[in-house]
């Protein structure tokens, strides 16, 4: 440092010089940046040549997203509005944990065995080999597994993914689409939204209708365990009030008749025995 203050003077000169040099800021809306041709900063849904979305609302992307950032809704093949997003994910997995951290008593996990269900791995590998370990046989393998276990356990899906060299998100998505069960067969959980919006829009009528249909009150389960009825304020579908959620799918806005239809549809799928039991319970109640 030769002269005291020389460094400061140098800095002052630099800033003064820059006062008169051209500025580098881009004035965004007027001045568009030239994006590199390889730019992949924008997400877009792809359209087919007829102008339709190619997205089929299969939720595969939402299920595999590690940060759970994807929230999507759409219509299933019967025109029901379905949704998969934060409330569904959090209600399923995280809610109890949040309660526990807050020092509050938490309800038990609904299906604690789901992630840790043991599967008969040698048998499963045998099944896969029996189909020649071909990816085309995926649905057939699912069918065999469901026949044995009653549903598709998570570990079985992992093994299938591992053996068939298909990414597990794809396996999971295929299992979710094809009418297979991802939960043990016992118990659909029907949740009626009790948020203010839904109650205004007729949520209590929904609840009454479902109580009548199932023969149980909120917080109870049918004797055969095929259905349980709950209310919750976190169905999280304020825009589609009134809403109900059956397992992980949210339906809304729906009328009491539609709700009855949804439940009876599932009862049919569960088999004659279950529906007979429910009917017996309903009759006893009546």
């Amino acid at each position, binding site marked *: 440092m030769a002269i005291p203050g020389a460094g400061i003077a140098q800095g002052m000169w630099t800033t003064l010089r820059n006062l008169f040099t051209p500025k580098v800021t881009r004035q965004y809306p007027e001045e568009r940046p030239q994006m590199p041709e390889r730019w992949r900063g924008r997400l877009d849904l792809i359209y087919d040549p007829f102008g339709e979305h190619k997205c089929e609302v299969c939720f595969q992307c939402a299920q595999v997203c590690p940060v759970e950032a994807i929230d999507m809704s759409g219509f299933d093949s019967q025109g029901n509005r379905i949704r998969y997003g934060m409330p569904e994910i959090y209600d399923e997995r995280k809610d*109890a*944990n949040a309660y*526990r951290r807050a020092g509050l008593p938490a309800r038990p*996990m609904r299906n*604690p065995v789901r*992630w*840790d269900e043991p599967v008969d791995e040698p048998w499963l590998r045998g099944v896969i080999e029996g189909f020649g370990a071909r990816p085309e046989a995926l649905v057939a393998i699912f069918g065999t597994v469901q026949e044995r276990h009653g549903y598709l356990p998570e570990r079985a899906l992992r093994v299938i993914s591992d053996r068939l060299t298909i990414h597990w998100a794809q396996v999971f998505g295929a299992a979710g689409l094809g009418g297979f069960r991802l939960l043990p067969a016992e118990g659909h959980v029907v949740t009626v939204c009790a948020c203010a919006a839904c109650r205004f829009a007729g949520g209590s009528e929904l609840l009454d209708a479902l109580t009548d249909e199932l023969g149980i009150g909120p917080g109870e389960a049918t004797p055969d365990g095929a259905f349980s009825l709950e209310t919750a304020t976190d169905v999280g579908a304020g825009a589609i009030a009134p809403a109900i959620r059956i397992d992980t799918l949210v339906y809304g806005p729906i009328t009491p008749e539609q709700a009855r239809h949804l439940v009876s549809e599932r009862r049919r799928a569960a088999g004659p025995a279950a529906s007979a039991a429910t009917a017996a319970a309903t009759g006893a109640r009546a």
Partner: protein
Amino acid sequence: MAGGLVRALSDRFPELADTLWTDEDTVEIQVEGSRNVEVLQAVRDDAELGFWWLADAAAVDYGPDRDDPRFEVVYHLFSDRHPAWLRIRARVDRADPRIPTITGLWEGAMFHEREMYDMMGIVFEGNRDLRRIYMSPDYRSFPQRKDFLLPDDAADSAAAGVVPLERPETWDLSRFREGLTSAAAATYPPTAERTGTEQEVEGGETLADQSRPR
């Protein structure tokens, strides 16, 4: 490539010679967890080996579904005399995961060990700051163990329910209370000599000495 190192190691530790393993740029030995300080100090201070730089210290959980459930604390060391990394795998019992600390050799192992404690639940005996580092202090699980279920509720997993480590019987508060006078505030600005503050604060006994396993 690392022939000289292999020879030097098998000379130095003949009892470990059958655990030697090499690949293109690494030489590996396996030791029992209780011997880690001895072996690390030997390879650090040995004139021929001279592994002066602790590159990494990590824990690996060979989980309950393995035939030999165990933890391993893996040290990677660097020496400018050998063109290979030295990897020392120290075996830790999975049921009672305890191992001596190496903060007496490298103070920088402190954060490594805190992370291993936080993530795996391995207790480093003699480490004077074995707290959780990433998770909150009241967290009751060790998230990087293999029996910790990722998509599931942490509190439901098998690694849950561990009581945080509190061992007040090991503290001797009077020791640092004496040394901790207002010396730190006495002179300003600090000189180059004063930056070795731990010598002064601890009253002549260096931090490294204290944290050496007793």
